[in-house]
């Protein structure tokens, strides 16, 4: 199946789902309208041979990353003259649509058709949760935990939504763009 054929099938079943404005290069990328569509869409994909959920992740679209999230002196360079700006400081790029939102990314793969569908879903940064896909795909288990740990997105119905990568004493979710490091017992 080519990407266009897959998209035509998706359109026939879910007319509200459209192609993403910014696609992932070379892959079919669709954008879901609301979290309510997620489970029915995934269920339909699973039934139509897309039985492997490869990736669950998200991007924080808030803006350039806050340098306070990095523990050490940024880009320490002993050859830099006193008072000079370090080589890299996160800076906003003019014209990029930053917004306070989380952009979730799901990658479905069909072993028989050898095709991929990238599904994007934008949600608010605070107070919104997404339905968990663990009842449909077991592979969602740890990846949703990782997304929760690093980005602070809550997945409703996840059987065991606890931290997975960061230590218990880490305050906040490191991949949020406004994450600021809180000193812990390993800082001097």
């Amino acid at each position: 199946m080519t990407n266009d054929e897959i998209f035509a099938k998706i359109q026939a079943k879910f007319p509200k789902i459209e192609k993403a404005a910014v696609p992932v290069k070379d892959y079919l990328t669709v954008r879901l309208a609301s979290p309510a569509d997620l489970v029915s869409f995934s269920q339909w994909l699973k039934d139509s041979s897309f039985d492997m959920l490869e990736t669950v992740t998200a991007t924080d679209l808030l803006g350039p990353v806050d340098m306070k999230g990095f523990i050490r002196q940024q880009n320490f360079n002993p050859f830099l003259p006193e008072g000079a700006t370090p080589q890299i400081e996160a800076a906003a790029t003019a014209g990029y649509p930053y917004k306070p939102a989380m952009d979730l990314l799901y990658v479905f793969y069909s072993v028989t058709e050898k095709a991929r569908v990238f599904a994007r879903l934008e949600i608010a940064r605070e107070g919104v949760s997404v339905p968990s896909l663990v009842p449909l795909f077991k592979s969602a288990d740890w990846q949703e935990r990782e997304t929760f740990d690093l980005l602070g997105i809550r997945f409703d119905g996840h059987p065991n939504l606890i931290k997975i990568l960061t230590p218990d004493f880490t305050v906040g979710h490191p991949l949020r763009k406004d994450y600021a490091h809180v000193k812990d017992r390993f800082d001097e």
Partner: protein
Amino acid sequence: MSNMMSAADASTMPELKSDQLFINLGPQHPSTHGVLRIGLTINGEVIVKAVPDIGYLHRGTEKLAEVRNYHHCVVLTDRWDYVSAMPNNLVFCLAAEKLMGVKATPRADALRVIMCEMNRVASHLLFFGTYGIDLGAYTPFLYAFREREMVLDLFEMICGARLTYNYIRLGGVMVDASPEWLARTGEFVEYFKPRLDEYDTLLTYNPIFMARTEGVGIVTAKEAVDWALSGPNLRGSGVNHDVRKTDPYCGYENYDFDVPLGKTGSCWDRYFCRVSEMRQSIRIIEQAIAKLPAGPFMSPGVAKIPKPAPGESYAHVEASRGDLGIYLASDGGISPFRMHVHAPSFINLAMLQEKLVGMKVSDVIALLGSIDIVLGEVDR
């Protein structure tokens, strides 16, 4: 006295009850190949509950990438799967090249293929040796490391590093392969081919080894897909999925090789897939050396500090442990706006919590070893 009586009575009763015991496997257990802790609740020899605990090696590479430029990020990639770092370099470069609209030269592509396949051989040799040790066979380890040293020596000869290469760069590779290096690699290939038969006599068909692994830790094809396993773990269950065939990169479609498949999805099948893959890797290396195109090893037009236009890209390769993918998003700045690693070890390990339940304690090591994880990639 009455206590003793009741104890004697209890021992003859059919529904003999014993207390459950909690034990920690790791994080310093030699068979976990790194810092993995599994909290096991056992009833006698049988596992009732298993809780894998990861994150001991979490270094936050996805966060670090947000304040580094694209060339810097290649250095970070070496530290995920540190026993096979070439595919890590490659997958990041492929994703960034897609984003920047750069293509590697034909010679660079061929060199990338040679390096990745050599690294696969080195990585699978490490698996072969340590899996033998896990199951009580010490000798194969010595043989495997003898050959692995040769591969690492070849890597050291070309790029100066034995594990963290940083050899594959945006737009090409770091240095060209000299005729001397290619000759030495050809010699290694000739030397290595008969060694594979030696391994089979040492371990593959060893009755004790087969008794420990065959029929143990069976993962059916349906389960494997449900857990989104990849690499030899998926193919051991008989699912024919290899990124080199389904989504070819670096000209893999021009090489003639087979994808070894397992039958039942037991530990032995996963092991056998890896050992057979080494043969195929050797075939690919031979073909790549034979038809190595001439020309530049680095494509022109890669900026010193690249600033790709806003966009998103995804690239994935068949790394030694499975389908390694990188999702990159750029906001037009000099650093990736978001980098996500689809790490095969992390995803393969997730099935442990369910698969271990009901197994015997000694089989934990057999299953864990056969999944072949590298904790650097699990925790990133």
